[in-house]
């Protein structure tokens, strides 16, 4: 059984090569229930590779990813059966992609996008699915009158909100986000971050947020991993790492933000 006094997810010795190209090497960390972990580092440092490996969308070349399931307790997510893994992915986990087109069904309405996961796990009452979808549109602060509109009619910020609602509808325990505010205007970014922060704390969600933007991680994450050339060079509480960076690379990263 899942439990609050052990990590929700653990990566050990996580390594991934793309042929001879290094994606990430020997990455180790734990995520606790309700904790938000930020992964920062410049482009190409291996952030997305780590995120994909821990969310079962990419198989590691070596190492393990253990997830504390609700019913079976800790399992190695790359060893369990495919049906079990896919069930986890669409119920207990959420994915928010940088490009909403990777995370939304662009050909169906906002309501259908939110209702999809419910239908995938067997919901067969149209009225109830619709009501739940309406509630979620409200929770991500979208106009519920736009339930039946296609995603392409929404702005980038609204599409991200829709992606978030679509994921949270099955009450996942962990959400994986890859540059969730990338490509958005600064003011839109700020409001989305506020919303995310509120949802994560209200729902007690654990989250892993990959970003190259230290401001995003300062706002959202409790703890931080700093990556460079595929390895973790520094880790610690977000404020500690950002205010008193120990590794020379982190110092460079922080100073380039403070003095652009």
């Amino acid at each position: 059984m899942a439990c609050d006094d052990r990590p929700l997810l653990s990566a050990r010795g996580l390594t991934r090569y793309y042929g001879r190209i290094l994606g990430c090497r020997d990455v180790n960390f734990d995520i606790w229930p309700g904790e938000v972990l930020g992964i920062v580092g410049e482009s190409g440092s291996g952030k997305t590779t780590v995120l994909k490996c821990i969310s079962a969308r990419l198989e590691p070349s070596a190492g393990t990813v253990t997830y504390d399931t609700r019913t079976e307790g800790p399992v190695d997510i790359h060893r369990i059966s495919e049906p079990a893994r896919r069930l986890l992915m669409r119920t207990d986990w959420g994915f928010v992609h940088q490009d909403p087109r990777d995370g939304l069904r662009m050909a169906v309405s906002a309501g259908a996008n939110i209702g999809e996961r419910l239908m995938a796990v067997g919901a067969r009452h149209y009225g109830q699915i619709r009501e739940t979808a309406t509630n979620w549109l409200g929770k991500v602060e979208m106009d519920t009158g736009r339930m039946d509109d296609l995603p392409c009619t929404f702005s980038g910020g609204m599409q991200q909100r829709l992606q978030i609602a679509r994921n949270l509808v099955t009450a996942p325990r962990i959400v994986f986000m890859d540059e969730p505010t990338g490509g958005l205007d600064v003011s839109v970014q700020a409001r989305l971050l506020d919303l995310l922060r509120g949802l994560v704390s209200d729902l007690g969600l654990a989250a892993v947020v990959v970003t190259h933007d230290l401001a995003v991680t300062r706002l959202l994450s409790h703890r931080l991993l700093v990556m460079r050339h595929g390895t973790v060079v520094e880790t610690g509480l977000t404020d500690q790492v950002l205010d008193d960076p120990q590794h020379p690379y982190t110092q460079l990263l922080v100073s380039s933000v403070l003095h652009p």
Partner: protein
Amino acid sequence: MTRVSTAARDGGYTFAYLDEQTKRMVRRAILKAVAIPGYQVPFASREMPLPFGWGTGGIQVTASIIGRDDTLKVIDQGADDTVNAVSIRAFFARTAGVPTTTRTQDATIIQTRHRIPETPLRAGQILVYQVPIPEPLRWLEPREAETRRMHALQEYGVMHVRLYEDIARYGHIATSYDYPVRVNGRYLMRPSPIPKFDNPKMDRSPALQLFGAGREKRIYAVPPHTGVRSLDFDDHPFEVQKWDQACALCGSTASFLDEIVTDNQGGRMFVCSDTDHCETRVRAGHVESAAGGRDPGGP
């Protein structure tokens, strides 16, 4: 094996056009399809002397199962006399020398495009459907490997997304042809573009139902007495089309009606799409009265 068909030869064709080796290959696919109801079995679809879209999948299935004792009926949109139906019937009359019929109850094999006959089928009959697109999940997933995985894992929730979208847009499930079904509680299946009116006829039919897609190289089947359930929502149950009038020719109120234009003044009337069914009823004396009296359909 190089055994020459002992069947009638005409113009150099082997019996029913296909060579014996091809027929055996198609039959193996059919047997597998029957063993796994609703599962799409790949087969090496052959070039046929008719263009795709003319039912080359159905023709290959028919050619592989037809024997000298069979009587063939071919329908297109319910009618036996369209170009497509006439050509296919002529094709088998010439290459297999089998008798053909327009009467549903006299046929042992019925090849169809877009309809299931109104006359209930019986044990021993085989219905062969011409299928343009076999994959029900294709609308949302273009990758074949992924749709196969979705079938393997029964990840069919997305099919309801489509029905949800129908209701959100039109207030009801507007899909009226090629309406998705679940076969034997397992595989999701496209019944080919028959009207959903015909879906209930597939359920537990005593006849064998075979589906052939030539261009897409797939064969699937619903064995006799197999459950076929149309997808729906608890609060939007599956319903078939209804008409508020009877067939203008035979007075049936229980058959699928086509609207036909009768003159240049925009005159229209509704008649059975199943021409054999309608004519049989007219011959039996069911004629729509001038007063518009109704006569429940049925064979």
